[in-house]
């Protein structure tokens, strides 16, 4: 793609840049930032209508490093979910992109994460999963492998939390996993996620080169390259058009997204149907047993209503309502008072 190519909004890819990263060179998070801005460019995301949300951690810093023209809120540790819920209800025209870490989401923020997913808050929820706390220098997080050893943190005695399975159990409507080394897959998942109706959780294995990149860690570049299984390849067709059926039966599957876009899934794992929750649990459980990283779209449900829909909001974002719209009249006050005992 040429440097001068513009998207539908007439913007260059560079217009989606943020500030220079201050992460370690080679950090998986940096590749993800790049893919986010690239996907946003390709999707022609209107940056004015994007909010970048995060908690605290190396991962949570990254919103500073992409899409500098979007508002961002770097909140507190583990609490990005609640803040984003408020933002999205205050202005449901915004597209929220949340970036969190495995510690931020799986440890301190676990409760908020599960409840956000349960509410189906419309947003893209990216977890940059490295199995450690990068920013505080390498302690194990809840996604660290059982029995894993690192130079810094010793041996991990606890089973790993699988954030995709957790999301799924909380009725998540879009569950995906990827690997920071797979730029293309991340971009296609992101584009689909941008068009998704509710919460799109993308758990991206993102090696911490400083604290957790030994070959025997399932969060290392090595492991990601060697033990990755790709479930499906995503083609994303933006816009409302119907797409022609031209796939080999059973090898491909089309899913229409809420805004009318389509995802065409080329199945690499024949048996898995990403619209079937039980199948999703099955592939995750299998991957767990075999210690492989399955990547791709694990589950999608375009039916579940979102927290915004459940709120039956007026069209105009709440934040943009005028005084007339939100302060009832004097007559209304009189009516309310008349209903009191007097």
């Amino acid at each position, binding site marked *: 793609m040429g440097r001068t190519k513009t998207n539908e909004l007439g913007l260059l890819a560079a217009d989606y840049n943020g500030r220079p990263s201050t992460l370690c060179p080679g950090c998986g998070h940096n590749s993800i930032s790049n893919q986010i801005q690239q996907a946003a460019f390709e999707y022609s995301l209107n940056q004015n209508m994007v909010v970048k949300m995060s908690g605290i951690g190396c991962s949570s810093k990254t919103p500073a490093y992409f899409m500098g023209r979007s508002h*961002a809120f*770097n909140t507190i540790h583990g609490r990005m979910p609640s803040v984003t*819920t408020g933002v999205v209800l205050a202005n449901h025209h*915004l597209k929220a992109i949340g970036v969190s870490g495995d510690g931020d989401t799986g440890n301190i923020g676990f*409760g908020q994460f599960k409840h956000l997913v349960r509410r189906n808050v419309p947003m893209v929820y990216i977890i940059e999963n490295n199995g450690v706390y990068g920013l505080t220098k390498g302690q194990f997080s809840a996604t660290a492998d059982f029995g894993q050893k690192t130079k810094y943190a010793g041996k991990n005695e606890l089973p790993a939390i699988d954030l995709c399975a957790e999301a799924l159990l909380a009725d998540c409507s879009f569950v995906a996993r990827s690997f920071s080394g797979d730029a293309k897959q991340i971009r296609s998942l992101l584009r689909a996620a941008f068009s998704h109706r509710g919460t799109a959780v993308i758990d991206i294995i993102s090696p911490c080169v400083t604290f957790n990149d030994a070959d025997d860690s399932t969060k290392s570049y090595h492991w990601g390259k060697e033990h990755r299984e790709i479930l499906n390849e995503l083609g994303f067709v933006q816009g409302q058009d119907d797409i022609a059926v031209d796939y080999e039966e059973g090898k491909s599957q089309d899913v229409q997204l809420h805004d009318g876009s389509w995802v065409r899934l080329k199945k690499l794992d024949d048996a898995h149907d990403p619209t079937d929750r039980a199948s999703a649990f099955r592939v995750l459980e299998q991957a767990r047993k075999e210690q492989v990283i399955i990547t791709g779209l694990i589950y999608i449900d375009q039916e579940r209503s979102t927290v915004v829909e459940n*709120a039956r909001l*007026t069209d105009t974002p709440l934040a943009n309502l005028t005084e007339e719209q*939100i*302060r009832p009249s004097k007559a209304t006050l009189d009516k*309310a008072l008349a209903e009191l005992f007097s």
Partner: protein
Amino acid sequence: MTVVDLQQAPATQLHSGQRIVNDFSFVVATTNGTGSQTSNNTLLRALFKMGVPATGKNLFPSNIYGLPTWFYIRVNKDNYRAHRNKAEVLVTYNFDTFAEDVAALPPGGVCIYPMDAPTGKKKWNVVTPSRDDLYYYRIPVDELTAQLNPAQALKEYVANMVYVGALAYLFNIDMAQIEGALSYHFGGKAKPIEMNFGLVKLAYDWAKNNLQKIDPYWCESMPDATFNKDMMMIEGNAAAALGAVFGGVEFVAWYPITPSSSVAENLQEYLASYRHDAEGRATYAIVQAEDELAAIGMIVGAGWAGARSMTATSGPGISLMAEFTGLAYFAEVPAVIWDIQRMGPSTGLPTRTSQGDVLFTHFLGHGDTRQVVLLPANMEECFQFGWEAFDFAERLQTPVFVLSDLELGMNLHISSKFKYPDRPMDRGKVLTAEDLQKAGGQWARYRDVDGDGITYRTLPGTDHPNAAYFTRGTGHNENAGYSEKVEDWHNNLKRLAHKMNTAREILPQPVVQKSKGAKIAIVSYGSNDYAIKEALDYLKARRDISVDYLRILALPLSPKVGEFINGYDRVYVVENNEEGQMAQIMRIDFPEKAPDLRSIARCNGMPLDAEWIMAQLLEMEGK
């Protein structure tokens, strides 16, 4: 012992024969979950409609069913509306507290109790009250209830109407007003009104036929008094919710906790009634969060995005919100937090009132966080701060705490009709796309352009390429960029301090009541107001001591507080907490005058009362 019914006349005449009219208190002792609240509020409303200033106070336990509950009704012809810690007339259905309740009556008091078994337990037959300086009346609660033959499930509930009828007869409470109150309570539905009022009447008639009025206490309609004219009755939490609705609240997130839940529940109802667009769609959203950390997080998010946002909680919730409100203070995000105070520390007593969160809330957040606090004293201010809090939060771009308490929040109070907001909303310094256009896209989120410490913000969704900024709880420069620079930090914190000084001027100013020649003064705030005014009257009337009075409405303290206290030899800071928290804040803010500040503080679950305040002050004055 003296049990008075037709079978038994009083042994002695305990009073001089003088009638005591509209100047005493009832206390009704029942157990919770039995529906006695309906009866109590009916009595309260009936008295109110008779033109008698009447104040209710519900003392209920922290459980759902079967534990002791007391409801006080004070009637006072002079319109003193503070709770008194005493009652002359006891009605009790609660066998378990009978002894202590009787013991608490003053000599010459009245005790009314069942002669059979209102709760299905045949205990009352064996009661023999121990004091012979009281008037007793016994009523056949069960028998009368049975006559109406209510459904089994309703029996306990309607049995409470028996005491309403008995009291109506004995104390001359207007039956028409009782019927009116019941009609209001049941939303005009004929069947329950009929059933309940039927029982009231039955009891009234029974009492008329069987009881001989021997005690001196009487209620009387006050048709010429204006106290209750144009007044209404409401609970503080409903007033707060209504105020918020007229303050244009757009987003509510909350987590249930006594005594704050009814703020959110009233919001839910009022919003559903009054806040929809033409297609019936909501101009608000309300979320029951998974906990207080999430509730505050959500409103901080919504406030940041530009919606008027609020939550309501109580002590434990305030503790859990510390980290988030620190973020909101430092990142300068508007949000409104109602704290309906209950007794702490810790879980404390969830159904008892206090003013124990003042200091902690003002300092809520590690580091040098300082929070804005509003302190409503009555229904009118609950309503007013209900809407104004949003103006202050958006103007100052900071969290605003409104510290009400259980006393205000969960009791039905007499109030004047609320005034419609007298000024347009203040949405604060928000730059629109057009503003940015005009400014050539030049702006800095944390630059103090106007010299008041308050800077400009943009909302997400603003359609201008320079609109965005990066919000963070970490150190930042004027452009909201991360900075560890000494000067950036310094400038930012100095500006925040300056903003807080601006707040001292913007926020509601203290209310002052002066008399001639006063050498001493009281400073207080919130729900103590009625009791203090009463105490001041007594001090003047009984001891000829003039005391001036300043009521604080907001933190950080207005400079006016400092000016006021400088005018007196001694200043008594009166409050309902253990440590004298406002006195402590005043010592911090006005060190020069600290030696002359005296704390009058108590925290035992009960609202402060005039007699106690007066006694404390006299003692400390050495009088």
